[in-house]
């Protein structure tokens, strides 16, 4: 009885009596949700254009952040380091396309998925070998003050992260919608063979997609790194991005953002208000169980394309 009480009554009473606290928890959750969204965004880009489920996205975030922070620590100005890191990520996209993807055309999805896990291992080892395994602070002058709106405390860095994520999504949408390359990308996403037959070079498209995913990874890495420093636990956020994808749908860019927000806010609220009843740390699995329950009702996700099967 007491147990049921702690699930169904107490949390809601707490929420009702302290709405400012609830708002703060939700806001904090939304902000970490944005981080998940940024990682999920990279997943969606690659999945849309090539059908590859890129497990290495999380490690790419880490790799980009490591390079960036490493170059800054080596004494380069921030702008130069940024440009150099972008070049590295583009080069990485070239290398992955040339060495891995081109050789695995027409293989089953699971094989490609395994290949990206292999890439993830490789990048993790490479990053660690070049830059060492220390936790590094990343300070590029993001605002770190707080604002008060009424009684609610808001971190400026989080607002900044939200703004960056928002402008990234808008920029990507414009790029997809209005540029030549963007149109080609959408064509490839729709149908590989049809795109090939009207003369769209598949290999170039893959390079572009992986490079864009690399840039998104860099942005995510900078945001995450300036908040929690650059460390190897970064690569595990890739796993948190999976339920985000399920919720938003594997093929939808807005879905990745909204899914991330829901997961981020949901798991914080669950942890703060319900976690105590179970002994804490329910954050670890809440997102996955939420995604699992969600899948029963809407297998294609919130914004995903309806799954149609033909025999």
């Amino acid at each position: 009885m007491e147990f049921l009480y702690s699930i169904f009554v107490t949390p809601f009473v707490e929420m009702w009596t302290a709405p400012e606290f609830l708002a703060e928890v939700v806001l904090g959750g939304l902000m970490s949700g944005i981080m998940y969204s940024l990682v999920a965004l990279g997943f969606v880009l690659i999945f849309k254009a090539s059908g590859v489920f890129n497990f290495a996205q999380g490690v790419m975030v880490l790799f980009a952040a490591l390079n960036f922070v490493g170059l800054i620590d080596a004494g380069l100005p921030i702008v130069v380091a940024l440009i150099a890191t972008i070049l590295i990520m583009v080069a990485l996209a070239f290398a992955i396309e040339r060495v891995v993807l081109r050789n695995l055309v027409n293989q089953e999805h699971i094989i490609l998925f395994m290949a990206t896990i292999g890439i993830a291992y490789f990048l993790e080892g490479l990053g660690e070998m070049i830059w060492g395994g220390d936790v590094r602070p990343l300070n590029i002058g993001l605002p770190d003050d707080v604002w008060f709106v009424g009684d609610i405390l808001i971190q400026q860095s989080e607002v900044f992260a939200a703004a960056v994520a928002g402008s990234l999504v808008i920029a990507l949408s414009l790029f997809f919608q209005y540029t030549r390359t963007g149109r080609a990308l959408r064509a490839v996403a729709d149908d590989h063979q049809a795109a090939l037959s009207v003369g769209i070079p598949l290999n170039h498209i893959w390079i572009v997609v992986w490079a864009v995913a690399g840039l998104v990874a860099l942005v995510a890495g900078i945001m995450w790194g300036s908040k929690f420093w650059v460390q190897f636990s970064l690569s595990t956020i890739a796993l948190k991005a999976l339920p985000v994808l399920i919720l938003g749908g594997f093929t939808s860019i807005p879905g990745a953002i909204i899914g991330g927000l829901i997961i981020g806010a949901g798991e914080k609220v669950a942890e703060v208000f319900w976690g105590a009843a179970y002994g804490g740390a329910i954050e670890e699995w809440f997102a996955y169980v939420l995604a699992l329950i969600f899948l029963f009702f809407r297998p294609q996700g919130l914004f995903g394309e309806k799954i149609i099967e033909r025999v």
Partner: protein
Amino acid sequence: MFYREAGDFKTSYAADQSILSIKLDRYFVIGLIAFGVIVVPMIGNDYWLGSLLIPVLVLSIAALGLNILTGYAGQLSLGTGAFMATGAYMAYKVATNLAFLGAPVAIIIGGLSAAFAGVLFGLPSLRIKGFYLAVTTLAAQFFLLWLFTHVDWFVNYSISGVPSIPPMEFFGVLISGAEATTEARYLFVLGFAIILGLAARNLARCKMGRGWMAIRDMDIAAEIIGIDPLKAKLSAFAISSFYCGVAGALWAFCFINTVEPGAYDINRSFQILFMVIIGGLGSILGSFLGAAFIVLLPIFLNNAPQWIGLNLTSDVISHMEIMIFGALIVFFLIVEPHGLARLWQIAKEKLRRWPFPY
């Protein structure tokens, strides 16, 4: 020339339907088992048996389990580690509270509990598939491990949360706990591996196994020819999780001597998935080859620099190890996406017609 089916006549239905219907295959497998049971414990030292062969065999059992689910029934799972943990924790529970049942029964009960968990988390497979299913199995991975670390009942309210396995006997020989000899533990694990390997081979070619393969190849078509997807998918989840649970229990009882959550985390799940893919999807032999490859490769990479006279710091070696491991996986997938089992098949073809080109 060396490998031939020709002239191998069968005169009864039983002979025609035996597990290994080709004489040479049969001799080879029997010889291999005899070698493993009799010769290896005599010539192997503690390091070889305890640190190489036992983990290879235990993980082969887990790989067999995942291969049943992913290779035969086509359902991708990333929750292998959690099912192994279920087996280990429940077997520990039985071994400490119902000690009179003995180690094998405890391990089998662990396997059955894992099967139950597998069915529970396999339910979403009736509605979804592919990577979506993989995410739901991740839910199993994180939820079950959280359960075992946060509910004290599973570890008998031990304060550290990492209890040791009690010493248990099997026909009067210690097979678990710190005092058990490596040979005894090796033979115990080997027994399980042989029985479960042969069982898997049989399962794959019975009605249920054919149902799994039909579901894997095209689920809608399978449904139309009368295979119940509910039964096929859930039985695959149950049996696969049973194998994983037994492997998890053996890992705790015969290898690490404790029940600790760290041994069954997400990396274990990926490791087993690697074994299945590198070994060959949908192949019993592949599970063993893959397990051996994945367990031995890091050990080899760790020692290789010394053998060729390179003097590297342990830091660099461990980073190199991860890099080379990743690169080799990509390399293998490019060169032979069907895994080591396929290489073995090609070798057999070659042996059949050697020394002629065709």
